[in-house]
């Protein structure tokens, strides 16, 4: 056994279940169009309270064994700094997609996202036994691309001009990491 009590723990953050108590924080974060445009390709509309409640209801009690949602919390004071999830696309192909965000711009660039993504990927390979993990990231998000590369994701291709923002079309990049690449780096003897 390699990871037990520290399976969901990183250097500065840990992954925890979602909580209804965080509703006001989510509402504040998702009123910021800059965050909305980094996180999703949908129209940057501030989320309504109803939408947050529905989302929290679904994610505090997922009905499917293919969805693993987490909140990201600081290790020192347990405050929530963001969220992340793995969704298994195909169990037979052992393929999952990840998504991640750090909510407050004050917390961006501090390495919380990289730390959390490292835990999430480890969970995907060490607990879910995935073979491959994918993500998509927008071409105008170089901070995230750098973070994903640090973790071990490689650029695999792009959907050209898939995203319209402010008069221009932008590319959506696909990045991926394989279980054996991750194992070779983290557990070369295993």
């Amino acid at each position, binding site marked *: 056994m390699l990871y037990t009590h520290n399976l969901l723990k990183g250097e500065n953050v840990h992954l925890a279940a979602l909580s209804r108590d965080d509703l006001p924080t989510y509402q504040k974060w998702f009123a910021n169009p800059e965050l909305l445009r980094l996180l999703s390709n949908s129209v940057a509309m501030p989320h309504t309270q109803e939408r947050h409640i529905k989302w929290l209801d679904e994610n505090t009690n997922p009905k499917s*064994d293919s969805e693993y949602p987490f909140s990201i919390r600081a290790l020192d004071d347990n405050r929530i700094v963001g969220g992340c999830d793995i969704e*298994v696309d195909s*169990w*037979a*192909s*052992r393929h999952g997609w990840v998504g991640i965000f750090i909510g407050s711009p004050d917390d961006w660039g501090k390495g919380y996202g990289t730390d959390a993504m490292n835990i999430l990927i480890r969970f995907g390979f060490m*607990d*879910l*036994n995935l073979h491959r993990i994918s993500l998509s990231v927008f071409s105008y998000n170089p901070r995230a691309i750098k973070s994903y590369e640090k973790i071990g994701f490689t650029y695999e291709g792009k959907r050209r001009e898939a995203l319209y923002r402010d008069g221009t079309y932008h590319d959506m990049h696909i990045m991926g990491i394989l279980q054996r690449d991750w194992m070779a780096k983290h557990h070369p003897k295993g």
Partner: protein
Amino acid sequence: MIYTNNLLQGARIHLAAIRQDDLATYNKWYTNTEFRRLLSARAVRLSTLESQAEWLKNIAKDEKTYYFGIRSRDDDHLLGNCHIEIESQPSRHGWVSIYIGEPDDWGKGYGTEAMGVLVRFGFMELNLHRISLNVFSYNERGMKSYEKVGFVHEGTTREALYRDGTYHDIHVMGILRHNWMAKHHPEVK
């Protein structure tokens, strides 16, 4: 790609979706107590067309289990039934169950053939690592068939089954993906 159109085919049988118009045949089989006592550790509760219809409705909603009818390839008539239930996706572990319905069809190798196809589906399509099954100690024909497919006896749940004044053992058998691959596709490393 190794298996394409023949993924669900054996030499004489194929695995197919379960049909509404098979329910009367299932219901007939389920009134045979010898059959029932080979299939399940539960007490024999007689089935009805209504309870069979309910079963069909439930399995359509079951996302963890893959159910098949076993049909003969020459005239497509229904011979039996089998399924794989995934116990753990991360551990890639599934449980199988199988039966041939009509006593006249027992001992002809249909079950062995269908189990071969089912296990292949488990390893080649579902990407399982391990497949398990339970078999009752008084079902020697079943055990022999499973051994032919490549299952090995791994343990015994002692006196787990009461039948007619005596307790019987339930055997656990299993097959691992690399055993199966070594036998059927030694070229794949």
